């Protein structure tokens, strides 16, 4: 029986699952970490995004055999108490509607801000376009990213954002 070890949110787990099991189902079904969402299963929507060894990954496309030994962070591991600046910005801007895509959106925004402490709108477009939101929260995501970057107020609610 294949057995794999992964460290998720600083906790080590050994799981006995088939080698081709996508990480999203290991997280959700085996470990009970349901904050990571399934949206399409083919890497198109971004809802299942997690951080694997420091890089964003669509967990529906990562087989457990490729993640053996990996250090993984999910939305549940971002902070204990929603205190991460990006979570705080998401609350301040009241981003979520249905919320299904937001775990992926938040982790993608955290990653963007690591690379670009003060991202431009074009950098936000480039980094976030692959994360689909059916409710249409994009402009609040943009505002929340600017806010988390310390630019709160740079783009007010009635302010105009030029891009594209």
């Amino acid at each position, binding site marked *: 029986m294949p057995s794999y070890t992964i460290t998720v949110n600083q906790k080590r787990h050994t799981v006995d*699952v*088939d080698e*081709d*099991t*996508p990480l999203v*189902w290991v997280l*959700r*079904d*085996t470990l*009970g970490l*349901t*904050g*990571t*969402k*399934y*949206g*399409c*299963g*083919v890497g*198109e*929507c971004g809802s299942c995004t997690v951080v694997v060894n420091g890089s964003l990954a669509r967990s529906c496309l990562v087989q457990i055999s490729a993640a053996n030994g990996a250090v993984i962070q*999910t939305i*549940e591991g971002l*902070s204990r108490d*929603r205190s991460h600046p990006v*979570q705080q910005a*998401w*609350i301040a801007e*009241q*981003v*979520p*509607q*249905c*919320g*299904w*895509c*937001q775990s992926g959106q938040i982790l993608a925004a955290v990653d963007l801000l690591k690379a670009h402490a003060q991202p431009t709108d074009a950098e*936000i*477009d*480039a980094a*976030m*376009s692959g*994360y*689909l*939101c*059916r*409710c*249409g*929260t*994009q*402009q*609040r*995501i*943009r505002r929340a990213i600017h806010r988390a970057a310390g630019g709160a107020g740079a783009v007010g609610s*009635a*302010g*105009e954002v*030029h*891009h*594209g």
Partner: protein
Amino acid sequence: MAEVFRIDRRDFLGVVGSAAGGLILGVHLPLPAAPARETGEFKPNVFITVEPDDRVVMYTPRPEMGQGSRTGLKMIVADELEVPWDSIEIRMALAGPREVWGSMTAGGSTSIRLFFGPLGDAAAAAREMLVAAAAQRWGVPAGDCTAQLGRVLHEGSGRSLRYGELTDDAARQPVPAHPRRKEHSQFRYIGKERPRVDTPEKVDGSAIYGLDFRRPGMKFAVVKRPPVIGGSLKGWDDADTKTVRGVRQVVRITAGVAVVAENTWAALKGMNRLKIDWEQGPNAGLSSAAIAAQLERDGQAEPLVAEETNNARQVFATAARKISAVYECPFLSHSPLEPINATAEVNGDSADVWVPTQAPQGALMTAAQALRAPVANIRVHTLYSGGGFGRRLENDWVADAVEVSRAIGAPVQIMWTREEDTTHGRYRPISRHQMEAAFDASGRWVGWRHRVIAHSNQFASDPERGRTQLDRGALSGAMGLAYKWPASLIEWRMSNTPLNCAAYRSVYAQQNCFATEAFLDEIAHELKRDPLELRLELLGGSDPRQAALLRRVADEIGWGRRPPEGHGLGLAVTYCFGGRAAHAVEASVDRSGKIRVHRVETAIDCGLAVFPDGVRQQAEGGVVMAMTGAIYSQITVANGQVQQRTFSDYPLVGMDEAPQVNVHIMDGGDPIGGVGEPPIPPLAPALSNAIFAATGQRLRRMPFGKVAV
């Protein structure tokens, strides 16, 4: 007028299924589906309890799918009960019969506008009973006492009591028939900025949606329905499926077949290895081309007249000149990001069902039918939905879960894959709109004609009636408009298809608004009139509120200015689901033919905006969803099968395309109107009009796709 009742603790337990103490009030909404107290028993739709520890629990019948109404409902109760915001906990009620609960359905943009009156009355009645109890205890007139943030105060003596100290006495007070509501100026929460109640759990992964629900011993199943519309299951070979570790069983269900496993991946893998033999059924040759040809043919057949003013048929018969255009709208998939799912645990002839649904009572009926058991044996627990948009009104998947759980004798969660969701949706109906305008010999515009040819949701299963009766829902946004047409002829011709269709956010209002508001622009162009001025003239005095919205978005977008080279401005307005919305759009087409939306100015008038930020969210999101529909979305059919599968062939507008949307809330007075749906219809025509202004090309067929430049 709503009726407010005091609830006996025993009755309360019977309906809600959990314990509570203190003061319990129910409110009965005067809905047609919920007749008044014929039998003398309590028939409340909502419960408010004030417990001895000061906690307030509100049991709501309305699901939360992202639309934010849970926060708005809490505002109403918190304000009229006059309690601290954090003292109220909202719990979703178990699904109950319509006679008890009225409609529990989150649809038609109704949750706030239907509940503001009765829910506020219930909370205000509770407040008055608490005040009366305190006054009695102190031996002072109730008029000398006031309620403030969970306490009753006696101003003369400075005494005060917590609500929790008064609940037993308050429960013995008579229920006021006409509790006094707050003046708008007294509102503490209503109309004010407040964070949503569900935001915290949606930023840390802790919110439990349908697909996140777990039961001890629960199995995971995926289902497959016949790929050809109207097909059926003949049989299968599961030899390879059974070799997948974790696969437990393959189960025939009414709708198709389910693979049951210990985890989702095993179920998916097992399903992929299942060799299924499908009966194709009568639609194996169906194609989108054939459906379009059918609509075109039906467009030439004799229609039913839905509305005629000023002898319009005669006007058209004698017109000196006419212009005409055909507008077309495709089938759409709702595609909420949380795939369709439900969890069921059947025990003999009873069952518990946990489901993200917009229509808990529909889920109850579906589960009862699937189990062939009375509804009293079923408990439906409604969980958060990861989007709905109308798809989760249908509950067709609930039977899958009940049937599988019964077959395997264990709790099970069924999930549809994204492909299954896209290929087996309940699609927004296809429609064709034949528009015509008549002019007299002097060039004066004298007639408006709109013939709607569409798949009928109302008569899909009863086409005989549909041939002689109007589907009034399908004419929403086409007939009964505020515009004073010179003469108008609105016609209807049903053109049903084998596809399963149902309501999609704003239902038919968007297709009809698209045709109406874009063709009106064509007429303005023909008359060399300003499209805004022409609209204002047609509205005349008949709906000043729509006129005000148009003026506002025109001001905000800078109507009349010369936009940058290659950009164009367009606008449109709607009244639907009790609410009004207008958009002004600035758009252009880039060198590759791609449509760019630079800015959208939105004005919405829903009367009193109970939860203003919720209104803004719905308008902002509605713009993006409607943009996706206008530019990208279509469900097509070949060989009887839906061709789209995932988001690569059913794309959504992304971050790089989503425009800045500036929302302006304008309170034009009572009554409170709908919010979720009105922002959808005017977007596509405003965009089409803007692209015409920018390029001279008239986009009459959705999706617009790329524009030839």
